[in-house]
């Protein structure tokens, strides 16, 4: 078994050696000469056999299985282009665009999703050249109308969801808002006390690291 060179949950910089020997390198780390080193500025997590680093910041790179929120930016003969707030746009084909059959002789693609529409969608395939394929087949994927959109750092998304969804559930309960979180850091808030929910989400974004985040958010939610 390997040797730990830093404690679990310690802050690391790129190039810092986290462990030596028999560990697997997970997200945010790389292996060099039998040492697992950090790739990013973040918090190291050492598990039984693998090591990962939770980054403090960074953009979104699409990953298969992610549910994201995007904006329709272009329409082709049988597909849509979706902006994902990432270097790579998503491709949504006609077949994946809807559960129902769309007859191109009778409907325009823009009647289904028009340019500027916001959709909640799933990443189903990412090639090595980072061509991103999206799908709306999952039942929770839909076009989002009304409500508000806020951007947070993608690295804060796990904090906003909380353990088993506890953080977002708390915000939902206290504000009666519906909240949808995209893995790419786009958050949709609709209905209820939108202002308050927005403030809570922004608090998570700004103070996303360190302990006692839940108490801080609770305090804001109870204020009004």
């Amino acid at each position, binding site marked *: 078994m390997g040797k730990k060179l830093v404690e679990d949950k310690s802050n690391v910089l790129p190039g810092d050696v986290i462990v030596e020997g028999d560990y697997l390198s997970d997200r945010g780390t790389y292996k060099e000469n039998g040492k697992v080193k950090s790739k990013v500025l973040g918090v190291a997590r050492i598990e039984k056999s693998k090591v990962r680093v939770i980054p403090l*910041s960074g*953009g979104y790179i699409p990953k298969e299985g992610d549910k994201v929120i995007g904006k329709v930016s272009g329409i082709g003969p049988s597909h849509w282009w979706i902006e994902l707030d990432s270097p790579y746009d998503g491709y949504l084909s006609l077949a994946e665009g809807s559960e129902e059959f769309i007859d191109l002789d009778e409907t325009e693609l823009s009647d289904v999703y028009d340019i500027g529409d916001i959709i909640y969608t799933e990443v189903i395939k990412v090639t090595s050249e980072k061509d991103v394929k999206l799908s709306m087949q999952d039942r929770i994927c839909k076009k989002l109308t009304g409500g508000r959109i806020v951007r947070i750092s993608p690295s804060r998304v796990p904090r906003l969801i909380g353990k088993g969804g506890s953080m977002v559930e708390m915000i939902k309960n206290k504000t009666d808002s519906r909240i949808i979180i995209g893995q790419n850091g786009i958050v949709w808030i609709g209905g209820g006390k939108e202002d308050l929910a927005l403030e809570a989400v922004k608090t998570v974004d700004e103070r996303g690291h360190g302990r006692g985040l839940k108490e801080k958010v609770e305090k804001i939610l109870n204020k009004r």
Partner: protein
Amino acid sequence: MSENKELLKNGKRIDGRGIEDLRDMEAEVGIFKRADGSGYFRMGNTEAVAAVFGPRELHPKHRQKPKRGILQCRYNLTPFSVEDRKRPGPSRRGKEIGKVSEGALSSIVFLEEFPTATIDVYMEVISADAGTRCVALNAASIALADAGVPMKGLISACAAGKIEDTPVLDLKGEEDKDGQVDLPIAMNAETGDITLLQMDGMTDIDEMDEMLGLAVKGCKKVAEKQREALMKTFEDSK
């Protein structure tokens, strides 16, 4: 070469430093809100800021690489940074330093994780007193880390040189102007990989070794300063 000024007297330099002393340093992370990552670095009277944007889509499209991303660097001396106002706009020197900085930084970034994309680094020197490329690179390196760009390590840069036939560390303006050699290097201080090495002036191989040794020592001290600044970002976000 004008020898009217005494650059070295009893082992002390014109600003009172010893042969192996760096100028005082200051570093700050996250100075620009609208950039993905940013940094400030100062060594003596040389100051630089850097902003990082990306990874983002690269245009024009024909410059995209299908298997890896690219890193683009801009180095600029602001008009007010030097004694006689510099004419603003791109210059031969600025372009060249941008180019070598690209090489110095891209060798530590995991560019293969961002095919077709670009990472843009903008370095602006706001006050120049020798060693501007080193200070700019130091700022750029902490800005890259702040942006969450995956990297093998940090790049630390520092110059060594020769004044009055003596190898010294971290030249300042007058020493650069009236000295014999200027040798800026950039390296990954953790692994010892040198990613930039330039030299101006004439020397022999033994002195070269001595100066390189000095510069490497300097880079290690710079790395400590960068680490200190980056560690502060953890406190700020609490």
